[in-house]
Each structure stands twice: as C-alpha cells, then as structure tokens.
C-alpha cells in the first residue's frame, strides 16, 4: 500500500521521540509494526538505515548513544525532543502577517518550497495571521538554472566552477569561492573570490553557461566579515552629471524625457518645437534617449552631449545600412558552421 512507507516513518518518529531511554535496533524493530515487512535481519537493517537518513534529511535529530550505567556495547537511538521541536516563537498576528509576506517573496522563486513549509510550521504554533501588508506583494524570480547550486554552495561555503560568458562575448572557466548571492533590479549576481585571479569578483548568473560544479569540501573558506554584496554590485554606477542640457523636442513628443525636465518653453526659432532644460544625470543614458527619439529631438548643449548623440545616430545608420545591402547578409547556416569550428 502506498502509504505504508509514510506510516513506517511516522511510527519511527513517534517511537524515537516518545522514549526517554536509548532504544536498540531490536527494540525499534519490535516497536514499529511495518518493520515486520522485512523478513530478514539484513532487510530490516537496510530499511532502518535508509529511514534514519530520510529523517535526518528532514532535519529530525536522530541521535545515538548508550546508557553508560550498563556498559552496553550496542548503541541505542532516540530523537532529542528539545532539539526536534520549534522553539516557542511568540509571534503576534501582525508579525505572522509580515512573515507570510516574507514567505511569499519566494512564491515564484528557488526557495518557494522551504518558504511555504516554514510558514506552515509557524502557524502550527497556534496563531492565525490577519492578512496585512496593505496590498504590497514583493516578488522575486530565479529563472537562471545556476541559482539553485550557487545558493547551496554559498550556504555551505564550498567552491564552485562554471563557464562564464564575459561581457565581450568570450567564454571562460572560472573557479570561485562563493561569498554571497545577491539580487538587484531583478538580476542575480554571485560575489566571491575568483581563485584564478586571486581577487573578489562579481558574476551575473544569467551569463553562466554551464552546470555549476562543486569543488572540494564544505566550509572550506571564510567570508569577509565586512562584505557588502550590494555595494560591490553597485560599484559601476556612473557618477551623477549635475549639468543642465538644452534640448529641442517636437511638441507632443518625448513624453518620457519630459519627466526629467527643469524648464520648458516653446522654441522661438522653430515653431512646433519646445526648448527644454534637462538635468543630465547620466550623460550616456540621456544621449541614448535623445538618439532614440530620432528626428523628434535635437541636442543643442553641451557640446559633448550633442556630439555623442550625433555619433550614435551615425553609428546606427552605418551599421544598419551595411546590412541593407543584400550580399552582406549572413545566413544562419553559415553562422553555425563558424561557431562550431574549434
């Protein structure tokens, strides 16, 4: 019967948790009726060993020991009930509600199962949650296959190796001691000691192209106390450019850009256009936005911004026009051949 194994495990838990004495294997065999299924001592041994492992995998502390008074050679087993049970965490309804919210952060991500089980265990203590959070539902996702293994390796402090697609497109094998797995702006990063380069590095999980292999033992290295994963990810944020740019926008166009505007007046020279003062902030991003608006925007000042917009427009035109000539087309078949050559 399909429930028989669960029944056996549950009886084993109850018998090991109910006892104050150490129970020998023979006593356990007699106490759990489903062990009668194994007719030989070997069959029972195999079942019992596997069951013990299953219980330990669930976090159930099956401990061994002997009652010293009897100087008995044969070890006994029991479950340490203090270690077994969830300590009485006294959460009020509001606290339990935010724990529920914290659990739902994972609803569509790698730790969805553990997060849901943890919440149920806490509600098993007796308190019910009033659904608070005022309609706030933060969610993350972990679409990268590398998340699971890297999370586990980071938890266990175990080195890993993987092949990594560098920003320039090259593939390289990296061996890393993971310090942290972090998410920002919806992207996952691994922060760790790159053994090949002997220095701290940040890796994007979406650029890991192989399976993640574990290397060496767990707990093999320490993680710097002062590690601030988020600031390591944020290191490459460009400095804020406080200058104000002058830009012409066709009236009614560039709605997005107009949100950053400091001042806007109808252009005196060009009817149907507005002259805008815009705080630059990130000069590269502003040049991109202006180039993207094409003939609906003209950057006037400063000169470096204007130059960058023109450079982008010329670049886009050159790259696109090159392809417009039909003989330049690369067919997918040719491409595959080139890629597969060693």
């Amino acid at each position, binding site marked *: 019967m399909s429930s028989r194994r669960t029944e056996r495990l549950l009886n084993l838990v109850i018998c090991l948790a*109910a006892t104050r004495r150490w129970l020998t294997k023979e006593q356990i065999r007699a106490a759990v009726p489903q062990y009668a299924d194994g007719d030989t001592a070997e069959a029972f041994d195999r079942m019992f060993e596997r069951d013990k492992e299953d219980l330990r995998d*669930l*976090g159930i502390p099956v401990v061994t020991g002997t009652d010293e008074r009897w100087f008995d050679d044969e070890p006994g087993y029991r479950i340490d009930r203090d270690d077994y049970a969830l300590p009485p965490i006294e959460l009020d309804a509001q606290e339990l509600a935010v724990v529920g919210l914290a659990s739902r952060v994972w609803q569509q991500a790698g730790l969805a199962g553990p997060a849901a089980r943890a919440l149920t265990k806490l509600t098993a203590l007796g308190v019910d949650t009033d659904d608070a959070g*005022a309609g706030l539902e933060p*969610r993350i996702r972990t679409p990268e296959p590398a998340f699971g293994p890297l999370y586990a390796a980071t938890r266990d402090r175990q080195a890993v190796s993987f092949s990594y697609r560098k920003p320039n*497109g090259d593939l390289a094998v990296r061996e890393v001691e993971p310090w942290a797995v972090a998410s920002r702006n919806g992207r996952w990063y691994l922060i760790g000691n790159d053994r090949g380069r002997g220095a701290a590095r940040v890796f994007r999980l979406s650029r890991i192209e192989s399976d993640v292999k574990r290397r060496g033992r767990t707990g093999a290295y320490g993680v710097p106390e002062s590690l601030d*994963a988020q600031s390591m990810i944020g290191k490459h944020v460009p400095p804020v450019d406080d200058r104000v740019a002058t830009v012409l926008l066709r009236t009614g166009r560039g709605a997005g850009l107009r949100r950053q505007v400091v001042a806007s007046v109808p252009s005196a020279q060009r009817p149907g256009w507005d002259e805008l003062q815009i705080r630059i902030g990130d000069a590269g991003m502003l040049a991109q936005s202006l180039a993207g608006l094409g003939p609906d*925007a003209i950057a006037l000042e400063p000169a470096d911004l204007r130059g960058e917009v023109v450079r982008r427009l010329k670049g886009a035109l050159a790259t696109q026009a090159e392809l417009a000539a039909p003989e330049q087309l690369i067919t997918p078949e040719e491409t595959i051949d080139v890629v597969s050559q060693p």
Partner: protein
Amino acid sequence: MSAVAATARLSRLLTMVPWLLNRPGIELGEAARNFKITEQQLVKDLELLFVCGTPGHMPDDLIAAEWDSGRIYLANADAIARPLRLDQDEAIALIAGLRTLSDLQEPGERRAVDSALVKLSAAAQDAVPAAGRLDIDLTPGQSGVEQALGTAREALRRHRRLRLQYLVPARDEITERDVDPMQVTSIDGRWYLEAWCHRAEGVRLFRFDRVAGLRLLDVDGTPPGDAVSRAVDEQLFTPSPDDLMVTLEVEPRGRWVAEYYPVEDTQELPGGRMRVVMRVASPDWIPRLVLRLGGAGRVVEPTALARQVVDTATEALAAYGTAMSPAHHEPSH
C-alpha cells in the same frame, strides 16, 4: 510512492498534527486549504494518523483522530505535539525575505518586520550567517518611483482612488486616468501597480517607472467586485498571436539587450556578437532601440523595420545639419 513523496508527506503530517491540536474542531475544508491539499487527501492523512502511535499499538497508544462531523479533533499525539524546528533552508528563506521587506517598509510599518526578524533569528541562530549571504534588494532606487510607491500604498491602506498620469512609450504619450488600486507588486526588480482602470474599464498593470504623476483622490477607491487580480508574470509574458517576431544582431557592447528585454531566442555569432529574436506586441520602439544602440546593433528582420531605421537615422542627422546652435559651429556630417 517514491521515497521523496513519502518524506514530503511525513513532513506535512508532522506539521499538521500540532496545527490541528492547536485548532480543535476546525472544519475539514479550512484545514485542507491551509495545507493546499484536497479534502480527500486530508482524510487520507487523518486515516494514516489514526493507525500510528507509540509502541504497543493498542487502541490507547494510537493517535486519536475524529472527523465524522466535518470538524477535526485530534488527541494522544504528545510525542509529536510540537512542530519540527525550521531546517536551514526554511529559516534562510524567511530571514532573507524579512530583511528584504525591512528595506521596503515605511517607518510606521517597520515594527512588525523588525520584531519578527529578531524572534526568528533567535529561534534559528545557525541559519543567520548563511541568510546574510543571500542578499535581495527590491528597493526601486529612483526617488520618483519611491514616492509614487508610497502614494499608492497609502491609497491601498485607505481604500482611495488615484489619479494617474502614465507614460505609454509605444505611443510616446502621457495619458491620464483614474484607477482603484488592487495591489502593489514587484517582479524582476520592477514595481507595478495593479488597479481597476476607469478609462479602460478593466484591470490594468502599470509600471511605476512610467508614472509621470500620481495623486490621491478623496474618493472611495474600492475596485468593483468583478475586478480579479492575476499573476503579474502571467500578464506580462502572455504571448499574443498578433505579436511580431523581430530579429536583431548585436555587437558585444549591445549584448545587454538580451538581458534587459524578454527574448524568444539567442544565438552566438563569431566575435562575441549575438543574434537575438524578440516577440513584440508593437514594433514601434525597435527602431528607437537601434538608434539608442548607436551602431552596437541592427535589425535583420523584418526588412521593413530595417529600412525604417535607415530612414529615421538619416532624417535625424539631417536635422542636426540645420539645427540652430548658437554656441557651436560644427560642420554638418
């Protein structure tokens, strides 16, 4: 039943026993909902509990379970009357989740998060260092977005309607509409407002980074009864048969496109270049993307879109040739 299924069920039973002991007389339906199982499965679980117990297995040794009345009563389960402690992954998930929330809460709401965090960390001390190595930042990072988030959350708390100025980039326009907020949610690092839109007379999803203005109205903002919330990723990523497939080729410095936008397919090309296939509802923004890329990418298909890039760039550069710029006298290209 596989070994995994057996241990998963055992794990559920070990949580179910204390949950039921703490709620004597709870209805079958409510208990089943809590454990996300059917009532039939719940009854099977109760039947299994009923035949388990302390050694001896005489009737008095077994767990007492009664549910004939539709209400569940459990007794004689002292050995497993308390829930199993949190394992490492369970504790890490909650602690990392709470820390994420702690960054998001407005000061008045922080008490519950902080005190829950203290209590959980004390109960699962072993997991605290590892939880610190999982670091999720969901803060929007743009002050405009943060402000709008605050306004929307206040509207949700007070059940107020919102007047929304919203940028529609595909049409390059800002629209104004009144909306009744349903939830504020984030997915992949972006924040969204799900609301009943009175202009569209339907549930709509709005990106906070496209909100140009948001004002709380002194009007009741309870959404109509037929406004049903949908999973956000479902709304975002449901393909439509009207979608257009666009193929781009990008240089190494344009590879971010495949990471930034949802793509159907990518293919490596020599020299670190990449071919990217995207499914788009409206192709209008693709020429704009290529102009932004400034030479780091181009449209391969459809060819009409490729021609549009050439035409738009040519026209834009012509404007620079004639633009009045008193401060600079650059030669036109």
